[in-house]
């Protein structure tokens, strides 16, 4: 039956599934969770209230909160994401974090009538959770245990019916591999170790069908706002607003960005002949899906040859998942049917570092398949499919970087030979050395099945470095700290086990600040979307950003300036804004609409658009400030939970020292440059310390410890959090 609870925006109901007792109960979303918006906010509040922060993340007492928000499935473009919040089993401090997945399951879940599902307890046999509107059940999944996610998702969809959407974990999650995910749609996944958490509870997957509706206060306003957004504001993926191939209507042309569609750029393998992207002028809705063409951005024009379509998530006009048939993989008896985007598909060459041949010569390990330069794409296709099949998460690329650094420094062989003599010779290195795509299936299988020391990469960076002595120059044969040393493959932003996500290299101090604030990579795109939009710096980027945040808030790429108050405003806008997006839920790869495609708007975006959507959907007047305030409540809770986890699990009382400490390479790279010179983005230590001071001031945190003050927390009605900090001696 349809579920409309009479509330605009929110579904109104939270589902609680207890796997130990088998009980399935429902509770009201509102009013309790309204101050936390939805999605990430609900998830963090549930964990805060119900899960002590020293709980073993893979124990029966641990919980996972699957949640969507008031804008999910409201008709608002790019509202197809689901946030899953839980305690980390792999990053330093073992604190709160979340996984996020797109695809189509968030819409199905909301239509079924739920804002969130709390999964708790532990089953004694493999199960999946079946949701069909108000009929919810725990079903046996014994026959699915051990199987890959593609087969499981296909089986669950076929078994339950055409309108069901599904998601599942792979063998990696079942085997409690930290670097594990849950996979939905095709290649859409939420990572951060959610696979291991669900595996520990013996939950193989979920299947959802919703015949209900999301009630909207002013539906035509939502439609008109959506049309306005797609016409005047939206460009390609990451909201890159200037096409990178000349189009007759466009004043500017970008050098390279995620708006690759253009006349002559085709979907070559469309079933009935190539489809040309054509021109996609600002102001026209019906061509928006041709703008991105992520495959061409990821791999160059060779991607056209294998492109069937461009996929993505529910409600989104910007299609960032190129869907391929990569024929050359058939020769290796591997699936040719692949789709993914960004990190899971673009960096597979890292698994093929140069090797030394029998003559002692350094030799390239990869080769072209059919066309010049197609190895990155073909291996990307193979690797993304293998990773998703086994349910392995890449930690935003750190998995590959850890392997490549360990291999190229000789540490990998040394460790394996010391800890498990004989294993090295059993590994089929010839597959790597010959650029064989089956190597990728081999490495992901080893990681997922926890086979040998090699599979320690699945522990995640933090525990891997600790176990292998990579965090201490005196404990490994390379004589370096992998967190700190200057190496082209070093992605670590700090010492917590996760990398930067558009940090100092794109967004200077602001990018570094928010890259440090979470317990996984930050996944904040507010600034990268602006600086890489393709819009010229002096004519558009600088005036538009200064229009919003004041003078000096932004710098040209590769020529940044010392910290100032307006840059801190930008960092805070991005940090709180990310919480808003993962709570609303809106896609942070697209929002906020900072720069526009429209010349008649002087390319100025609309930062109030999110509030306009909230007002139209919920039927109450929201301002941008209202949303930022509620979002900052979630930011504060994140910080409090991080502080408590660090205290309980590590004995730390100082986040500035123990959580926010940036890797040395960020300051030490490019020795021929000084900070602030044109041509470098290396940070300056003194400027960074000043940045932290200003940041803590802006967030209302103690300068010495980086922990929120009582006054700050009380401002956000978080007195209970202040009490807990006080009880632990943290404030």
């Amino acid at each position: 039956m349809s579920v409309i609870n009479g509330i605009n925006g929110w579904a109104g109901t939270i589902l609680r599934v207890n796997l130990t007792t088998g009980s399935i109960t429902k509770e009201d979303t509102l009013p309790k969770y309204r101050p936390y918006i939805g999605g990430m906010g609900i998830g963090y509040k549930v964990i805060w209230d119900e899960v002590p922060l020293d709980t073993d993340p893979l124990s029966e007492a641990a919980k996972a909160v699957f949640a969507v928000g008031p804008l999910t499935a409201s008709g608002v473009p790019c509202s197809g994401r689901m946030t899953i919040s839980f305690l980390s089993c792999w990053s330093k401090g073992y604190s709160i974090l979340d996984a996020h997945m797109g695809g189509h399951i968030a819409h199905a879940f909301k239509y079924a009538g739920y804002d969130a599902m709390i999964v708790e307890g532990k089953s004694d046999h493999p199960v999946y959770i079946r949701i069909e509107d108000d009929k919810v059940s725990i079903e046996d999944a014994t026959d699915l245990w051990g199987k890959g996610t593609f087969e499981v998702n296909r089986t669950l969809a076929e078994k339950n019916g055409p309108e069901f959407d599904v998601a599942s974990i792979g063998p990696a999650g079942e085997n409690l591999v930290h670097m594990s995910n849950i996979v939905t749609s095709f290649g859409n996944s939420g990572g951060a170790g959610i696979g291991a958490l669900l595996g520990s509870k013996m939950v193989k997957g979920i299947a959802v069908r919703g015949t209900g509706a999301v009630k909207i206060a002013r539906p035509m306003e939502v439609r008109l706002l959506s049309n306005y957004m797609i016409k005047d504001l939206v460009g390609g993926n990451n909201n890159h607003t200037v096409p990178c191939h000349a189009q007759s209507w466009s004043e500017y042309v970008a050098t390279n960005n995620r708006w690759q569609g253009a006349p002559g750029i085709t979907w070559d393998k469309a079933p009935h002949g190539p489809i040309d992207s054509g021109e996609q002028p600002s102001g026209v809705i019906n061509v928006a899906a041709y703008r991105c063409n992520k495959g061409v951005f990821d791999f160059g024009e060779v991607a056209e040859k294998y492109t069937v379509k461009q996929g993505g998530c529910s409600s989104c006009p910007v299609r960032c998942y190129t869907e391929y048939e990569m024929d050359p993989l058939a020769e290796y008896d591997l699936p040719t049917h692949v789709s993914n985007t960004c990190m899971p598909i673009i960096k597979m060459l890292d698994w093929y570092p140069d090797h030394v041949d029998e003559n002692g010569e350094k030799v390239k390990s990869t080769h072209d398949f059919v066309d010049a330069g197609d190895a990155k794409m073909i291996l990307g296709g193979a690797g993304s499919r293998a990773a998703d099949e086994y349910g392995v998460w890449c930690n935003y690329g750190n998995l590959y970087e850890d392997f490549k650094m360990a291999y190229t420094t000789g540490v990998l062989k040394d460790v394996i030979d010391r800890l498990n003599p004989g294993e090295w010779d059993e590994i089929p290195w010839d597959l790597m050395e010959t650029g064989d795509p089956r190597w990728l299936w081999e490495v992901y299988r080893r990681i997922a099945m926890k086979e040998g020391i090699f599979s320690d990469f699945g522990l995640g960076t933090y525990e891997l470095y600790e176990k292998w002595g990579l965090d201490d120059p005196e404990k490994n044969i390379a004589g370096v700290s992998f967190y700190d040393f200057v190496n082209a493959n070093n992605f670590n932003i700090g010492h917590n086990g996760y990398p930067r996500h558009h940090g100092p290299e794109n967004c200077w101090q602001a990018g570094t600040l928010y890259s440090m604030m979470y317990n996984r990579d930050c996944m904040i795109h507010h600034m990268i979307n602006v600086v890489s939009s393709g819009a010229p710096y002096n004519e558009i980027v600088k005036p538009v950003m200064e229009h919003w945040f004041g003078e000096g808030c932004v710098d040209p790429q590769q020529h940044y300036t010392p910290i100032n108050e307006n840059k801190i405003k930008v960092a805070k806008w991005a940090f709180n804004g990310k919480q808003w997006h993962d709570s609303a839920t809106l896609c942070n790869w697209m929002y906020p609409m900072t720069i526009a495609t429209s010349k008649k708007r002087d390319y100025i975006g609309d930062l109030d658009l999110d509030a306009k959507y909230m007002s139209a959907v919920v039927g109450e007047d929201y301002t941008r400030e209202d949303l930022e305030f509620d979002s900052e409540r979630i930011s504060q809770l994140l910080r409090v939970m991080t502080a408590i986890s660090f205290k309980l699990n590590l004995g730390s009382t100082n986040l500035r020292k123990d959580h926010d400490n940036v890797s040395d390479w960020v300051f030490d790279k490019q020795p021929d440059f000084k900070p602030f010179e044109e041509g470098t983005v290396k940070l300056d230590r003194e400027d960074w310390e000043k940045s932290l001071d200003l940041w803590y001031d802006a967030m209302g945190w103690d300068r010495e410890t980086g922990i929120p003050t009582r006054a700050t927390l009380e401002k956000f009605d978080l007195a209970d959090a202040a009490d807990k900090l006080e009880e632990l001696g943290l404030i």
Partner: protein
Amino acid sequence: MADKKRFLDRDYTRRQFLKLSGKSLAGVAISASMLNAMGVTADAVAEDKVRVWAFPQGLLVVNPDRCVGCQRCEINCTLTNDGCCSSYISRVKVTRNLTYSRNGQGLYTEDTWTYFPDTCRQCETPACGEACPMQAIYADENGVRRVDTEKCVGCGACTQACPWHMPTVNPVTHKSSKCIMCGACAEGCPSGALSIVPWDRIVSASQAI
């Protein structure tokens, strides 16, 4: 064949298109200018993958190759006609083809990315209307078949009778949500998989040499 060719190339009238509405175009020779106007390839027409429907606003063209699965057609349909956002009661249906369709296609199969929007065929002899025990489905002055919500009792006979199960009874209002050819789905389609080619453009294309 000669007659069919002339049919689409010149002497065009909307009435003639109404005769083709919802039927196969395979075997119909279509000029390059008309293919261009419709945004489809000759191969797709020859393989019977393109459907057209004559709407008051123009010719609705459905091209599965262009469908990107974003579901904005369902969203705009329900925002416009139901005042809410839903997939199940949408008059255009893509979700049921997107994940695992009745044909065994969709994202959870190894099929070649086949998913597309189903639309109401606006049948000349509508099974939905014929089956309705309340005679609630009627044709308006434009020939669009609508549901008289005063008469509709939500029995679902229209859903069952339609070979494609396009009408859906709204579980909240208990009224059928049959397509009324409003065009919101095509207007908001970001890939042109659903497009309404205005009649004046069809006329121009039909007269082009």
